[in-house]
């Protein structure tokens, strides 16, 4: 099956073109945009890990190594599209417009961390595995019924393909031919379980066959491959041709979460083939004359400032409001819940 689903690439590990088809479509603006977003989310990710170690954030799910997959796909979206992320896709949601401070808040156990800009349709991160795939199919279905050109993207990991919701989501999407892109980041592991123990199929892309939709396998560390292939899948969707399954082959560089210890279950043997997506883009930029030290420095400074300000904003955020425990469960609070709220507020001396 692997031969039917070759890993698509635009550039190789050393940053040279392997697929000339895209050469003309790549310009300075795109290159710098991809780089600056990837640099930005990596800085965020490393900061979050540090904050967690200092006890300033709760458990955090890092994505280092997956920047090209998340940025490349998120930049392929239109502003009115729908995004259904997991707990590891805040790189994608940051790229699509969610703020850093809000993203930090999420990891600090604040429900406000689920809020996204009013002009972006980003679902709160799915914590139960694979449950967001049917949602994406449904939101895309609604767009189709409404006759728009909007589409949806669902992010999910390799482990997610074992859950029933994965299959149900893909099946609905293909039966009703809805404009959705199922974007898998195959990062090698579902917590401790390597892909070979997760499934007996060699690729995730081949699972598309069962659902009669295109399946694409690409190098998830090649931001161009991710960007152009996701764009194609969206064009396919927007033209009324239905869903696509994309498998972006990448690598989870660090632990599953800050509460996990990967030395228990993995050797670094496999990591040696991994080429840092950011470094790869840097090499490309140097090879083809896009690299510019002064620009890089400005990106660094801007990002450092943004991250510091976001941390400050998170830490200065008003303390959580007890009433939020009760207020958003129903549109209109049932009387018995209202009584519980009233009694509790009296207990804590708020009324």
């Amino acid at each position: 099956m692997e031969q039917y689903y070759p890993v698509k690439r635009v550039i190789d590990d050393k940053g040279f073109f392997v697929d000339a088809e895209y050469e003309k479509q790549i310009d300075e603006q795109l290159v710098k945009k991809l780089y600056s977003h990837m640099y930005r989310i990596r800085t965020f990710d490393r900061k979050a890990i540090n904050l967690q170690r200092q006890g300033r954030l709760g458990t955090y799910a890092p994505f280092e190594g997956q920047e090209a997959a998340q940025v490349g796909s998120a930049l392929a979206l239109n502003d009115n599209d729908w995004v259904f992320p997991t707990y590891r896709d805040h790189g994608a949601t940051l790229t699509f417009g969610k703020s850093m401070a809000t993203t930090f808040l999420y990891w600090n156990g604040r429900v406000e961390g689920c809020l996204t800009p009013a002009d972006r349709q980003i679902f709160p991160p799915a914590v139960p595995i694979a449950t967001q795939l049917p949602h994406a199919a449904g939101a895309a279905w609604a767009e189709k019924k409404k006759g728009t050109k909007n589409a949806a993207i669902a992010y999910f990991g390799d482990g997610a393909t074992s859950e029933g919701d994965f299959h149900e989501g893909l099946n609905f999407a293909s039966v009703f031919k809805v404009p959705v892109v199922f974007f898998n980041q195959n990062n090698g592991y579902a917590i401790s379980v390597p892909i070979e123990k997760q499934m007996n199929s060699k690729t995730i892309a081949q699972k598309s066959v069962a659902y009669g939709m295109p399946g694409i396998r690409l190098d998830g560390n090649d931001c161009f491959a991710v960007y152009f292939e996701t764009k194609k899948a969206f064009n396919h969707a927007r033209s009324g041709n239905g869903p696509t399954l994309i498998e972006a082959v990448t690598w989870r560089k660090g632990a599953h979460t800050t509460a996990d210890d990967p030395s228990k279950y993995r050797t670094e043997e496999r990591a040696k083939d991994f080429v840092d997506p950011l470094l790869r883009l840097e090499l490309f930029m140097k090879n083809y004359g896009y690299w510019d030290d002064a620009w890089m420095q400005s990106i660094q400074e801007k990002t450092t400032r943004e991250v510091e300000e976001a941390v400050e904003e998170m830490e200065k955020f008003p303390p959580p409001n007890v009433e939020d425990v009760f207020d958003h469960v129903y549109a209109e609070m049932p009387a018995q819940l209202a009584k519980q709220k009233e009694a509790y507020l009296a207990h804590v001396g708020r009324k």
Partner: protein
Amino acid sequence: MTQVKETHQKSETAKQMTLIQAINDAMRLMLEEDDRTVILGEDIGKNGGVFRATEGLQEAFGEDRVIDTPLSEAGIIGTSIGLAVNGFRPVAEIQFLGFIYPAYEQIMTHVSRIRMRSMSRFTVPMVIRAPYGAGIRAPEIHSDSTESLFTHMPGLKVVCPSSPYDAKGLLIAAMEDPDPVLVLEPMKNYRSKREEVPVGKYTVEIGKGKLVREGTDVTLIAWGAMVSIAEKAAEQAEKKGISCEIIDLRTLYPIDSEIIAESVKKTTRAVIIHEAHHTGGLGNDIISIINDTAFLYLRAPIERITGFDVPVPFFSLEEHYLPTPARVVEGIEKVLHF
């Protein structure tokens, strides 16, 4: 009330263990003793479980008996049914109770009723272990306490140990039980204390509660992580001259109505403490048991100190969801001064 089948010199045969170590110990013993035992779940093999409940077991017993499964709760429970009806004794780990819902259908429609549907021709002697509960600053959905969904499921037994000793004894009893048993493990108690646990095999009878503190004025009824909340509340009440008796239910189905009735007849008042949501919570069944068995002894309506009818909040607010000793003391005073 607890049944220790083995009686040896304490110093030789008991070891200080945390609740999670006691659980590990129970599984190790049963893997050694009974070839039919298989342990399966997500990350339980090489990783030894995200809480280390199965630490070292795959190394000791091999990948055929301690099995890392694909990420699929319905698959884990569904295949465990097949294993159980066909000669094995599966112990399935669900990583967190909040992730059991994909398997809910398998548990509700098959695990719990295969015996009935086949008139005992097929049975599913299997165990499902699931850590549950709030208060450890876990990410959202990791903190559910939805035991009522499972006590409302005829054919299934539900146990919920609060101490290392009970955890080992109940888990072994569950593994030897001819019927399916859900073992709810309070995450908050996993490492909160150590106690002497016999090294050998013993069981704690399913369906029996435990008197953890004697008192005369009011009965506190709790299980899992709420037992220590009850204990703290009892200490605070004691300073006010109130004497609390505490019952740890240990089994949530079938429930030990005798221990409840006996205690309430003595104290004449009751406060039930559970972290699960208020409406539809097990507290309601306990009130019915008291009505049925000790109604004329009651001197005050029974109080319930529970979680609210809201999803367990994100961890920055979870302390406001969970019953606290202060809320329990308020309840105690209310029943005393009725």
